[in-house]
């Protein structure tokens, strides 16, 4: 017999290393033509580090996204970063990049103030121009400013940024501490169909809801959410490195037996994004890279309970575990 059930799960997750102390630096160099190069030390592991740093640099300098180049290749050229983990890159590197771009913009303003014969604090950088706020006629292209600054004034238009949250002091007995930058919030809804005779579970629907602080790039976010959810589905349904835990027997040594989800194993997921800005992240952003794998699994397990009244307390929810739990319930 096949039975349908629905389940939900909620969660939260910090951006940056718990306990603080993790550094990222960034450099933004404005070229004589008004384009920019942002250099960071964090890796793009597919999550989109390069895209987000280019977006932040373009936003601050008021130039096109296409006019920004990103360098993050090596430790000879790139500034320090603790790395790409702990959902820290958009937040920590993002802040460093924003600082660096603002620093570069400050230098551009210094140059433009001389050229436009005004004070620096009336200037804004927008539409690839430096212009006097409220007086768009009084403007110069960023290329003109950068060219004149570089060759005419011998300026090096290089902005620097460094963000590091102080390490959190901690009470060893209570663990009272302020260990993280900000929290993002998430919840998932799953609908499943359980075959009570074979124990097979089919995921019919998976909906994910997130607070991301600021959706820096919504397409990006959707991709992260879908990808993390799929990893959550794998852990909930089929993945187990030690299937006869704690024994090492029958440990899968290939990607046929270590069964990560294929196109056929995940439904067409839907997601909804909410923006509750963080107090100090770049543009209010929060990091959600990791937490996307957290709530889909328990939502599926809760949906299985809703369908057939069993609790799976030992992942993954293989057909065998479902059948054994049904037997135990029936007995």
């Amino acid at each position, binding site marked *: 017999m096949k039975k349908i059930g629905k389940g939900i799960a909620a969660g939260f997750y910090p951006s940056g290393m718990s306990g603080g102390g993790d550094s990222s630096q960034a450099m933004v160099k404005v070229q004589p033509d008004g384009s920019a190069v942002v250099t960071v030390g964090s890796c793009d592991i597919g999550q989109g580090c390069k895209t987000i740093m280019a977006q932040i640099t373009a936003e601050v300098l008021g130039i096109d996204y296409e006019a920004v180049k990103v360098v993050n290749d090596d430790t000879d050229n790139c500034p320090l970063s603790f790395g790409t983990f702990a959902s820290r890159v958009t937040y920590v590197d993002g802040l460093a990049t924003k600082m660096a771009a603002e620093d570069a913009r400050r230098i551009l303003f210094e140059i433009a103030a001389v050229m436009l014969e005004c004070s620096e604090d009336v200037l804004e950088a927008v539409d690839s121009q430096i212009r006097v706020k409220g007086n768009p006629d009084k403007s110069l292209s960023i290329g003109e400013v950068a060219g004149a600054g570089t060759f005419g004034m011998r300026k090096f238009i290089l902005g620097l940024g460094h963000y590091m949250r102080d390490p959190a002091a901690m009470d060893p007995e209570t663990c009272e501490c302020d260990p993280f930058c900000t929290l993002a919030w998430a919840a998932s809804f799953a609908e499943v169909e359980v*075959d009570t*005779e*074979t*124990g*097979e579970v089919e995921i019919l629907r998976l909906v994910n809801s997130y607070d991301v602080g600021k959706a820096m790039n919504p397409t990006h976010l959707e991709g992260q959410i879908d990808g993390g959810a799929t990893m959550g589905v794998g852990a909930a*349904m*089929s993945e187990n490195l030690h*299937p*006869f835990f704690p024994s090492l027997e*029958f*440990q*899968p040594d290939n990607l*046929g*037996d270590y*069964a990560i*989800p*294929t*196109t*056929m*194993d995940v439904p067409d997921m839907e997601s909804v994004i909410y923006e509750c800005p963080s107090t100090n992240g770049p543009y209010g952003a929060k990091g959600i890279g990791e937490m996307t794998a957290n709530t889909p699994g328990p939502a599926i397990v809760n949906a299985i309970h809703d369908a057939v009244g069993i609790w799976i307390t030992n992942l993954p929810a*293989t*057909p*065998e575990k479902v*059948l054994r739990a049904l037997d135990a319930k029936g007995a």
Partner: protein
Amino acid sequence: MAEGEFYRAASPREAAGLLAQHGGAARVLAGGTDLMVAVNKRKFKPQVLIYLGDAGMSGISQEGDALLIGAATPLNEILASPLVADKAPLLATAIKQMASPAIRNAGTIGGNLANASPAADTATPLLVLGASLKLVGAKGEREVPLAEFFTGPGQSVLAADEIIAQVKVPAQSAEAKWAYRKVGKRKAQSLSVVSVAVYCPLSGGKVSGVAIALGAVAPTPLLATEAAGLLNGKALDEATIAAAAKAAAEATSPIDDARGTAWYRKRASEAVVKQLLTELAG
């Protein structure tokens, strides 16, 4: 380092002759989807390879009431064949759930059977359809019913100098009902934990000549003859189905492995046979 010899056999007979000539050092190569995995994992170092791709062993034709499928025919070619869709849709259904499109483009029906894996997914439909194999050796050829081909995990009646040249599949009867189901660790690209094929000719509301085969639950792909015997001449009612499903499960002798436990395989065998028969009765 010896680099070995590579032959392109022009016929099954030539391939068999080369096998005889080179003894244990030689292996035949068709799609390579199993052989090359073993080579890459360094489980096997080829010394002589005999390639079957040019041996005229590929293609599907009809002979009387049977389909003749060259052993080196890629699985996807069988899946795409209108002839197979018409005469042996059960086989096509099973193939569609095998491995992945790219593997099916290279992997052949003969290769799937020759390895004699208990989980070979073409075996269960071919068993219930009463298929037979043409084995070609250096000295001659013989026809072996598939039901007599497998002798154990990775073992068959294939002699050291023999290859499977052709699979003969009796056409399904137009009135017959059939069903196939595979339980794996995931929904695609998965080796079977349990697979079941049922072929069920009907006459006057009663079934006769029914066959049930199960994969991955015994040392060889398994024809559940006792279970089938309980169905012949009967109407497919709930009690009959339950008895047959139980008998099918009893015929299994599964093991624990990376894909599932013996306990689960037995339970799922019964459940899937029951579900398929119920589906056919409906």
